[in-house]
C-alpha cells in the first residue's frame, strides 16, 4: 500500500516560560491512501503537535527534527514538510493535505462569509474565476450536508450551528480534494448527537472521496467508530501501533491497557446500583427528600427588552437522602442551571424547588445561608475553582472557618489534613498553590473542600469533563468511595451517559429544559423510552469497534424512524 504521509523520527521541542520542553520524541508513523489513522493520547502526549507538523503549522517557538514526507493524491510528488520553504509549504497546504480543527467556532473567520473563505482557498491554488469558485463552494457545501447551499454560502459563521460550522470546516478541507485530512479532535467541542453526524461525514470523506485521515482524539469511542489503524501516544512517544480490532481486543503496551480500562462503559454501573438499592433500610423511600423539584422553571432575563431565555421548563424530580441522581443532557439542556439553582446561585423563577427543607423560589440569601453548611458543590473547571492566591490548605479550610468550626486556616489544619488524606492527596500538598497541582489533583482537593462539613447533599457539575480519561477514572472511583463512606445525597451532572451510569442510582435525561426521561440506570439506559434518550444513547460511541459498528446501524435506524 502506498503511503500519503510518512513521518520518520520526528522530534519537536518548544520554548516555554519553564524552559525548553520536548513535546514529541522520535515518532515514526505512516498513513496509507484512504486510510484512517487515529492518534490517541491524553493531554501532553504530543498528538496535536505531531498532527500540526504534518501541515507545517507549528509556532515559531518550536524546533523540529526528523522528516515528514508527504505525497500528493496521485502519488506523483513527494515533499519533506520540515525542509520546505514558506512558499512551497503554501502550495502543499490545501491541495495535498488539509486540516479540520477542534473548535469550529474559532476556526472560521467571523468577519467573512463562509463562501468567501472557501473560495479563498480554491483561488489560492488555481486561477479560476470567481464564478467558478463560487459554484465549487456551493457544491462542496451541499456534499457535506449543508441544506440550501446556494443561500447559505453567503452567510457568516455565526449564523450556523456548531455542528454545521464543523461541516463547513470539513468542506473547506475537502474542496481541493487533498489526499490527506488531519482532523484535530474534530468532535470534542460538539454534543454527542452532533458528534455522531460529524463522524459519519468523516467516514464519507474516506469512503466517497478516498481521502486518508489522521484523526487526533482522546476519545476511545471515536477511535473505535472511525479508525482503521491506531497509534497510541504517551509523553511524546508512540507506545503502540496496531489495527483497530487488534488494539481493542489485544492491547500490548501497559499504557494502552490502562487507558482502555479507564474508559467508562454504559451498563457497567448497573450492578453497583442494584447493590446499593439492596442495602437501603426499609422505609427509605418515605424519608423526606433532600431535594424536591415540582414544576421547576428557571428563566434568564433578556437584554434590551428582548424576551428572556427559559433554561428549565417544568421539571420534577426528587433526591432522597444518600441517593445519587445523575442528570444527563447536552449543552443548552439546562442541567447546569438546575445544579446552580439548588445551590442558590441561580434564581428560581417558577414552580417549586425545596432544598434541605427550604423553598428556593423567592428565598433570601440570608435565610438560606445557615443551610449552606449542609451542602457541597464541585465545579467543572479545575483551573478556576480555587483562589490562585491561597494555598490548597487555606482553600479547603474555608468552609470550616466560615461556619465557625475553626478560627483560622492554622487551627483547621488537622482537619484539612484528614480531608486531604480522605481524597488521597498527600498532606504536604496543602502547602501548595492551586496552579502547582494537576487538574485531577485539584478536583480531588475540590471534593475535600466540598466534603469538609460532611454535607448531606453534594452537587457535582461535570466534575470530570475537563480531565483526561485515566484521571477521570480515578476521580470517579474516589467519588464513589466517598459517597459510600459519607453517605451524602448527590446530584451528579454530566454530558457523558457512561460516567453518569457508573455513579448514579437514578438517571434523569434533560432535553431543552425538560426532563424527558427518569429512572434507574437499567431502565433509562437498558430500555430507553423517549426517542431523544434512544438517540442520545445510540450516538454515544462505545470503545469497541465491532460493537460500535452494530450501534451505527442502530443509530441509522433510529434516525430514519424519526
Amino acid at each position, binding site marked *: 500500500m502506498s503511503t500519503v504521509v510518512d513521518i520518520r523520527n520526528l522530534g519537536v*521541542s518548544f*520554548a*516555554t*516560560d*519553564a*524552559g*525548553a*520542553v*520536548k513535546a514529541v*520524541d522520535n515518532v515514526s508513523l505512516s498513513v496509507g491512501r484512504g486510510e484512517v489513522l487515529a492518534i490517541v493520547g*491524553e*493531554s*501532553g502526549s504530543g498528538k496535536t*503537535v505531531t498532527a500540526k507538523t504534518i501541515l507545517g503549522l507549528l509556532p*515559531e*517557538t518550536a*524546533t523540529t*527534527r526528523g522528516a515528514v514526507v508527504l505525497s500528493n493524491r496521485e502519488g506523483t510528488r513527494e515533499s519533506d514538510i520540515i525542509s520546505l520553504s514558506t512558499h512551497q509549504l503554501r502550495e502543499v497546504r490545501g491541495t495535498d493535505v488539509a486540516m479540520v480543527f477542534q*473548535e469550529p467556532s474559532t476556526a472560521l473567520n467571523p468577519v467573512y462569509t463562509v463562501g468567501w473563505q472557501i473560495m479563498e482557498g480554491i483561488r489560492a491554488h488555481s486561477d479560476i474565476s470567481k464564478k467558478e469558485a463560487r459554484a465549487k463552494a456551493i457544491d462542496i457545501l451541499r456534499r457535506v450536508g449543508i441544506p440550501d447551499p446556494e443561500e447559505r454560502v453567503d452567510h457568516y459563521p455565526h449564523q450556523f450551528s456548531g455542528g454545521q460550522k464543523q461541516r463547513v470546516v470539513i468542506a473547506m478541507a475537502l474542496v481541493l480534494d487533498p489526499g490527506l485530512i488531519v482532523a484535530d*479532535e474534530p468532535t*470534542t*467541542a460538539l*454534543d454527542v448527537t452532533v458528534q455522531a453526524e460529524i463522524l459519519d461525514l468523516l467516514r464519507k470523506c474516506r469512503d466517497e472521496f478516498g481521502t486518508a485521515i489522521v484523526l487526533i482524539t*482522546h476519545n476511545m469511542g471515536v477511535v473505535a467508530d472511525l479508525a482503521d489503524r491506531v497509534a497510541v501516544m504517551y*509523553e*511524546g512517544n508512540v507506545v503502540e501501533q496496531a489495527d483497530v480490532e487488534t488494539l481493542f481486543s489485544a492491547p500490548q503496551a501497559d499504557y494502552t491497557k490502562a487507558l482502555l480500562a479507564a474508559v467508562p462503559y454504559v451498563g457497567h454501573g448497573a450492578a453497583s446500583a442494584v447493590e446499593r438499592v439492596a442495602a437501603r433500610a426499609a422505609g427509605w423511600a418515605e424519608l423526606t427528600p433532600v431535594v424536591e423539584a415540582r414544576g421547576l422553571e428557571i428563566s434568564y432575563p433578556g437584554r434590551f427588552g428582548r424576551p428572556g*431565555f427559559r*433554561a428549565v421548563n417544568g421539571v420534577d424530580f426528587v433526591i432522597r437522602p444518600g441517593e445519587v441522581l445523575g442528570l444527563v443532557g447536552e*449543552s*443548552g*439542556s439546562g442541567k447546569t*442551571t438546575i445544579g446552580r439553582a439548588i*445551590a442558590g*446561585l441561580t434564581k428560581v423563577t417558577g414552580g417549586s424547588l425545596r432544598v434541605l427543607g427550604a423553598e428556593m423560589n423567592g428565598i433570601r440569601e440570608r435565610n438560606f*445561608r*445557615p443551610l449552606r*453548611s449542609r451542602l457541597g*458543590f464541585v*465545579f*467543572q473547571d479545575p483551573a*478556576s475553582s*480555587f483562589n*490562585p492566591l491561597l494555598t490548597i490548605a487555606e*482553600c479547603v479550610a*474555608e*468552609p470550616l472557618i*466560615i461556619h465557625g468550626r475553626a478560627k483560622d486556616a492554622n487551627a483547621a489544619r488537622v482537619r484539612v489534613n484528614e480531608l486531604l488524606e480522605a481524597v488521597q492527596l*498527600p498532606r504536604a500538598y496543602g*502547602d*501548595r*498553590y492551586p496552579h502547582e*497541582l*494537576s*487538574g*485531577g489533583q485539584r478536583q480531588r482537593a475540590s471534593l475535600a473542600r466540598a466534603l469538609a462539613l460532611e454535607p448531606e447533599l453534594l452537587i457535582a457539575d461535570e466534575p470530570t*469533563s*475537563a480531565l*483526561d480519561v485515566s*484521571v477521570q477514572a*480515578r476521580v470517579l472511583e474516589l467519588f464513589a468511595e466517598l459517597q459510600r463512606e459519607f453517605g451524602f445525597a448527590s446530584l451528579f451532572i454530566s454530558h457523558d451517559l457512561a460516567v453518569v451510569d457508573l455513579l448514579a442510582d437514578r438517571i434523569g435525561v434533560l432535553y431543552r429544559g425538560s426532563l424527558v426521561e427518569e429512572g434507574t440506570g437499567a431502565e433509562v439506559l437498558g430500555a430507553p423510552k423517549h426517542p431523544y434518550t434512544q438517540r442520545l444513547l445510540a450516538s454515544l460511541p462505545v470503545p469497541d469497534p465491532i460493537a460500535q459498528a452494530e450501534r451505527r446501524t442502530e443509530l441509522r435506524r433510529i434516525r430514519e424512524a424519526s
Partner: protein
Amino acid sequence: MTAASVTPVRRRPLRDRLPIVHQLRQSMGLQRGMLVAGLVMVAVFILCSIVAPLIAPYGFAQRKDESGAFGTQQPPSPEHVFGTTVGGYDVFSRVIWGTQTAILVIVIAVLLSIFIGVALGLYSGYFGGWLDRVLVVVCDAIYAFPSLLLAIVLSIVISAGQSNLWGGVLAAAGSITVVFIPQYFRVIRAETVRIKAEAFVESAKVLGASNARIVFKHVFRNATRTLPLIITLNSSEAILTLAALGFLGFGIEPTAAAEWGYDLFKAQSDVTSGIWWTAFFPGAAIVFTVLGITLVGESLNDLADPRLRGRRRVAQAAGEVAATSVVPGGTLTAGPGGLDGLEDGQSFDEHGIEVRR
C-alpha cells in the same frame, strides 16, 4: 498520570513573586532591554528628586547670588550649565527641583485615584444594582470627555486662584485624580465582574461566605493584580497632565515650586527668537521621565500577556534529550506557561454556563 509521578513543586522563591523583579527575570531580548532602560530612567528620576538639594546649584526661585543677578535668557555657561530663563532663573536648578514637584503630584494623584477608583470599582462590580449603572454611565461620560479640559476646570475650582506650592500641587493632583478615577473604576470593575463569575468565588458563595469575606479575601487581591501596570501608565499621564496645565498657565507659580510645564509656557516666545535652552531642558526632562515610566509600563503590559511575551528559541531538539524532558503527568502539572495551548485538552465552555449552539 498518577499523583505520585508528579515531581514536588515547592513554593515559588521570593524573587519570582515580587512584582517587577519577577518580570525582570522573566523578560528577554528587546523586552528586557526596554524594561531595564525604563527602570534605570525611573531610578535616575527618583534619585534626582531625593538629592535635589545637593545637585541643584541654586534654589528654584533664586534669581541672584553673591555676584549679583543671573541675567535673563543667558545661554548655557559654566555658571549656568543650561542657561537662564526669561524670568532670570537658572534652568538647570529648576529642571532638578522640578522632579520633586512631579513626584509629589504623581504620588498624591495616583494614591487618591486608586483609593477611590478601586473602592468604587469593587463595589460596583460585585454588587451591581442601580448605583453600579449610574456609576458606569457617569464614568463612561467622563472617560470619553477630553480629560485636559476637565483637569483645567477642576484646577480652577480647586485652587480657587491660589498658586502656592500646596495649592498648585493639590489642584494639579486633584484634577488628575478626578480624571483617573473612571479609569481605575473601569479596570477594577471589569476585573471584579470577571472574577465574580469564576468558580472560586461561586464556591465561596456556596459555602456561605459573607459578601465582605468574598470581596476582601477572594475578589480584592485578584482584581488588583494589574494595578502595578496601571499605576505606571497613569504616573506618566499624571506628569503629562501636570505639564499641560502648567503650559496653559494653570500651574504653579515659579516662586512656589519648579514646574516644567510652566517653564515651557514661559519659553514659548523664546523659541521664535531662536533661544532654545529655556524650552529644551525642561521639555527634555518631561520626555525623559515619561519615557522611563512608559517603558516600564509597556514592558509589564507585554509580560502580563502571554501572547505578547517574547520567548527564547530552543536549541535543536537533537542531542538534547537529556536536558529537556516532557512535562511529567501531563500539561496540567506544568503550571502556568507550561504546554497549555499547544496541546489542547477538551474545551467546554469555561464558566460552566451551558450555551445553546
